[in-house]
Every structure is written in C-alpha cells, then in structure tokens.
C-alpha cells in the first residue's frame, strides 16, 4: 500500500466520520476532505472538475438543481395541502382510510418530487386533520415518512441516491420505472397492511368530529390557481421529457434545467423566489463527495476494493446482488445514504462491468438497499430527521427508539421481499 493509498483513506475515513457523527457541518467535512485530496495531489483539477468518471458529476448536480427549482415553485401553490385535505374529506374522517390516502399521496409525490419537500408539506396537514379528529398524530407521521422513502425509491428523481446511480450507471427514468417502481408499489401496499396492524389502536375515532374535517375547504389552500396550472404543466412536460429519453436523447439534467427555466420564465415567481428553495448546501455537499470519491478512484482504492469484493463473493452475481442489497440496507439505516451511494457507485460500476450480462442487477440492489434502508432508524434518511424535528416543534415528539422499532420491522419486511424480488426477477 503506497503513501497515496494511506493518505486518501485517512482523509476519506476522517471526513466520513465527521459527516456521520455531525461533529462539523457535513458540507464543511465534504469540502474539507475534497480540498485535502486536491492539496495532497491525490486528485487534480482536470480530474475533479472535468472527468465524467472521477470528478464532480454535473448531471447529478444540475438534475438536483433543476428539480429543486420546480419543486420550490410548486410548493408555493398549496397543491399538497389541498390534496391532503381533499383526501381526508374523501375518507369522511375514517382514521384508517385517512392514513391510507395520506400514505398514497406521500408515496406518489415522493416519487415525482423529493422526499423532504413532500413530508414538509403533508405533515402540517396531518397535524390539522388529526387534531380535528382527536387522533394521535405520531402513527400517521411515521407511516408518511416510510411511504416517502418507499415512494422516493421508485423513480430516478425520487431520491438523491437514485440520481447518482442513474448518472453513474447510465440508467434512464424508464429503467427505474420498469425495475424499481413495481417493487415500490408492492412495498407501499405492504406498508399499509403493516400500519393496519402496528397502529391499530390509532384508528379509533369519534364520528361526531367528522364534521370538523368536512368543514375544511381544500380550495382555500390553493393560493395561486394560475401558478398551479403552470407548475403542473411544466412538471408534466419534464416527466414526459424523462420518459421520452429514448426518442429525444436529452439527459435528465437537461430536461430538469429546461423545465426550471421555462417555469421561471412563464410564471410570476421572481428569480430570487425561485432560487430561494434551492438547497445550495446539498449541492455543494455532493460536489465535495464526488471529488473525495474521485480521489479514491484515481489512487486505485476503489478498483482494489472492487477486486476484493469480487474475490470474496466468488464473482457470483446472485450472491453479490443479495449481499449488496442487505449490506446497503443496514448501512443506510445508520449513515446518510447519499455519501454511501456516492462511495459505492464506482465500486458497483467495477463489479457490474466484470459480471455482465447480469451486472445491471447490482445497481438495482444498491438502489433498493440504500433507499429502503433509510426507513430503519430515525436518522436513516433526511425525511425521517425532518419529520421528527417537526413533531418535536409541534408538541408531539417521536423518540429515536419509538421510530426505530417500527423502522426496523418495516426494513426487515422490505429485505424479506426485496431479496426474492431480485433473485426471481433477474436470475
């Protein structure tokens, strides 16, 4: 092992520990690590900024950026609040049906937008509906968080790890729809069934309170109808652009940027407002991660790790896929799945290259493991952290272990279904 290997590993592991323990801000840790890699000559400017394999993946950055702008405009319309209130009214205040509809709205919205925005918008309505129906809000919030993580796994744009996987593996929106979405549909139905059992005590309501929910007017939530139709029109065009990739050949990042630009152009939202919801910190975090992981590739550590994996698993694709799926689930439950997938993507790329024709299965195993593993603990995914923070602020705190006991169960069920899904479907 050369000094370059040792130095790259020390910098990378050090940054990872700082990110995981939150001793310093995750952006500072990722940028600091990237700067050290560059300063020590473990990677260089051309590789970090211009290489498609070992540098910042601009497809990922601009796809995230474009979708953040679109989502930022859509959230100003009040659409989610209106949908959730409409769902509660359609359920006529029946608690389990309210939960089912909120779970479905959250899962579908998370697949098309992003998980954190979705739960940020659905959770407040959940508080309102539960308060009106005198229901405990915690089971509903936990179910929504899990639906968000499951729904987000379904598409290329649903969860940041999928964006990394899609870009690194050259997988399209349609590939995710065909390979991951069907499992997520099944998993959402299973989640609803689990909620029926796990939260059975939360479904007792007072019929006299139903009028309180029926009195809510969802139309009042829509603050700008013109903006709503413009946003939905642009979102539909963007989704069409993703689906028509085989015909149009536009990269997902280009489609998202075109959509964001068009929406800002035709709507009355100012550029400042449109950019206000862009999570610049997240984008910079990604850049730092890509440079750090790129240095591991440049120094040959990733290649060595892939060879070691391949040797240990005997080059058997079935075994590799199952191990990757399960290990990803466990690790994503305890560490942020974004840096995990950013690190594993080049490893899986190497493994997949050596294990064709079934190599692509490894990407699906990584996606399912990393996305669904986020449900395992209270810190497994950003949506979990955000909702637990909201619950605390709003006076209904959910403890780490309270969430985790349900999270582990749902993750175990996910694993029990995902393993046969991968094996039966692809081998």
């Amino acid at each position, binding site marked *: 092992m050369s000094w370059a290997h040792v130095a790259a590993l020390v910098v990378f592991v050090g940054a990872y520990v700082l990110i995981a323990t939150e001793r310093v801000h995750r952006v500072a840790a990722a940028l600091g690590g990237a700067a050290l890699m560059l300063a020590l000559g473990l990677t260089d400017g051309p590789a970090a900024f211009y290489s498609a394999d070992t540098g910042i993946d601009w497809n990922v950055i601009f796809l995230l950026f474009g979708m953040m702008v679109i989502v930022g405009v859509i959230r100003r*319309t*009040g659409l989610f*609040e*209106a949908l959730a*209130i409409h769902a509660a009214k359609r359920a006529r205040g029946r608690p389990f049906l309210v939960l089912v509809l909120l779970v479905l709205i959250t899962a579908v919205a998370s697949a098309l937008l992003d998980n954190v925005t979705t739960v940020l*918008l659905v*959770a*407040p*309505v959940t*508080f*309102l509906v539960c*308060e*009106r129906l005198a229901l405990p809000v915690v089971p509903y919030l936990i179910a929504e968080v899990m639906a968000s993580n499951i729904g987000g796994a379904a598409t290329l744009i649903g969860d940041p790890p999928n964006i990394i996987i899609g870009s690194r593996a050259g997988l399209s929106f349609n590939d995710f729809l065909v390979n991951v979405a069907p499992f997520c549909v099944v998993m959402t139905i299973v989640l609803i069934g689990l909620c029926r059992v796990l939260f059975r005590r939360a479904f007792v309501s007072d019929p006299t309170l139903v009028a*309180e929910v029926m*009195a*809510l*007017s*969802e139309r*009042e*939530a*829509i*603050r700008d109808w013109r903006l709503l139709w413009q946003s939905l029109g642009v979102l539909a065009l963007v989704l069409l652009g993703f689906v028509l990739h085989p015909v149009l050949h536009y990269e997902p990042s280009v489609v998202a940027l075109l959509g964001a630009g068009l929406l800002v152009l035709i709507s009355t939202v100012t550029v400042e407002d449109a950019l206000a919801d862009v999570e610049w910190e997240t984008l910079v975090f990604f850049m730092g991660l890509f440079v750090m992981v790129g240095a591991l590739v440049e120094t040959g550590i990733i290649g060595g790790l892939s060879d070691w994996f391949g040797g240990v698993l005997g080059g058997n694709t079935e075994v590799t896929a199952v191990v990757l799926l399960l290990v990803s689930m466990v690790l994503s439950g305890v560490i942020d799945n974004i840096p995990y997938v950013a690190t594993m993507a080049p490893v899986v790329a190497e493994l997949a290259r050596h294990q064709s024709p079934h190599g692509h299965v490894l990407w699906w195993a990584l996606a399912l493991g990393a996305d669904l593993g986020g449900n395992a603990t209270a810190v497994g995914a950003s949506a979990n952290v955000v909702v637990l923070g*909201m619950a605390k*602020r*709003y*006076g209904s705190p959910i403890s780490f272990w309270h969430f985790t006991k349900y999270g582990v169960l749902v993750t175990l069920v996910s694993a029990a279904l995902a393993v046969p899904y991968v094996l039966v479907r692809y081998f």
Partner: protein
Amino acid sequence: MRAADLMEEYPSIDVTASALGAARTIGAEHRPAVVVLDGVRPVAVLPSSQVMALLVPPYLQEDPSLVHVYDEKAADALARRLSGKSVGDLLPEERRELPVVRPEATLMECAAVMARLHSPLLVVAGKDGAMQGAVVASTVLERLVARDP
C-alpha cells in the same frame, strides 16, 4: 421631562394568572402588551405576539397555505390551547432584560432603553421595585419629534 410625567396607567397581570386571562386583558384593553407582575414587582413585558405564538399551532404558523384553510369557526379550538396554562408558561425560558426605568429617568434615557431593548413599552418602577405605570413609545416619540427641525 421625566418618566413620571410621561407614564400612564397600564394593564398588568400576575405571573400566576391564567394565560387566557392575559390574552383577554390584552384584547379588552386594546394594548400591544401586558406587564407581568410577581406580586407588585414587574418581571416581564408580555407582548401580544407571544400570546399569539401559543394560540396558533406552530404547524399553521409555518404553512401559509394551510393557515388559509383554517376556518374562524374553529377558533374555539385555539382558545382551548391556552386552557390550564399560566402567564408564566407564556414567558420565554430565557428571560430577556426587563425594559424598566425609575420615575426620575429623563426623556432621552427612556428613548435609549426602548431603542436598546427594541421595546415599545417601558415599565416605570419606584425604589421599592413596585410598578407605578408605563411609558409607551408613542408618547416618547411625540415629545422627541414635536417640533420641526
């Protein structure tokens, strides 16, 4: 001109009184705040915004679309959020410096304390610490800018 000349009678409420009582006092007296007393000594100025923050659920405060949906008929539910709570529960955990002056404080001293503490209200307390009244910002401004420069 001294604080004793500028002060007026101002509504106050005991720290152990009900939170709903404080909200009603502020509403009935058409004042932006109420002075909170511990016995006869002023301990805090409770602004109406602080009462509002407890009255309106935080999930509504943070979601402009959702709060637009909230019908006024449900206002009874909001009032219930204050039941069982005392004025002391409405005060922030970290007590801020009380905007208080002696009756002999000058007009400029009053203005300086209000400016430093960003307070539209100044409690006037005697040597024994008991509240004698309060000076409101409008009175101070009226005196400060009475004449054209």
